[in-house]
């Protein structure tokens, strides 16, 4: 047991896990208590888009100009095909090609 978990590992993992789960479930239960119409509803409706953007945009900017071109291509592939696998393949192929010429 001592080889597998060093001092403090079990409480640290349990605390981190509890907090993470609490946030996941807590958010959902809080949203249940919000009114089903009006400003609160609108806030919830907009959350997915704005969170996804916030997850994506900083990373995309770090990818530089080539990254932007690649991203544009991926989005075109997605709009044409609506297939995530093809979008991912296009992204990987594009970046591999670009990095070959680096």
């Amino acid at each position, binding site marked *: 047991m001592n080889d*597998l978990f*060093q*001092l*403090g*590992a*079990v409480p*640290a*993992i*349990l*605390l*981190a896990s509890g*907090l*993470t*789960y609490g*946030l*996941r*479930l*807590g*958010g*959902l*239960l*809080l*949203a*249940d208590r*919000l009114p089903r119409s009006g*400003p609160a509803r609108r*806030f*919830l409706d*907009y*959350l997915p*888009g*704005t*969170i*996804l*953007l*916030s*997850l*994506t*945009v*900083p*990373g*995309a900017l770090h990818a530089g100009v080539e*990254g932007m071109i*690649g*991203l544009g291509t*991926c*989005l075109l592939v*997605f*709009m044409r095909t609506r297939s*995530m*696998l093809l*979008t991912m393949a*296009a*992204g*990987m*192929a*594009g*970046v*591999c090609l670009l*990095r070959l010429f680096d």
Partner: protein
Amino acid sequence: MKALVKGMQANIPLAISAMAYGGVFGVLSANHGVSWAEMLAMDLLMFAGSAQLVMIEMWSSPIPVFAVGLAVLIINIRYLLIGASLQPVFDGRPLWKKVLCMHLVADENWAVTIAAHRDGGASPAFLVGGGLLLVTAWTAATLSGNLLGGLVMEPRRWGLDFAFIAIFAALTLSLWQGRDDFLPWLVAAGLAVAGERLLPGKLYIALGGVGGALTAVILEMVKVRKHVAIDDKGCNGMIQSGVEEN
């Protein structure tokens, strides 16, 4: 059952990406002195990639338990919003279902589920299907990285780092509903970019998410007030003309 399988299928591209990252992450964790059992416990009990990464960076002897907790809280505060945004998917479902399902919510299956929900409904089972696939892929990859070390390929070389961004960008695009989204989205993106430079951990995600959604609320209020103002004018005009007719 059908929805569960569908959720798995929809998450396959992201699971591939997660595996590539998990492999590298596993190697890193071994270098930081994290045992396979600790890795496994984190994968299954916590199941949150970026917070796990920060945790293993803090892995020293003895482990600073409260500092770790605080760091995890800062990184994962976005799950509060992610959980809230799943409300329409869980609408009307019993509490036990929410309690059981919410553990398996990661960025990836959340995004796929929200996109599917807008396209005509995704159930909690769809979400859980994706979660099960992701937790399996993530655990298998991190454990093999931790135990086998250098055998893992470099995700950057294969463009897998970029594939992740590409998929998320595509999912974002699929949520676009029209011109009304423009300003809230712009605010979200701006705040996220600024926040990433200025704030610790992943707080920028929560900042962009909240800021953008609040912008939408404010815009709607301004719009309603304008309408009310116009209606008031209209009513006054009618009353006045009515008075004149009399």
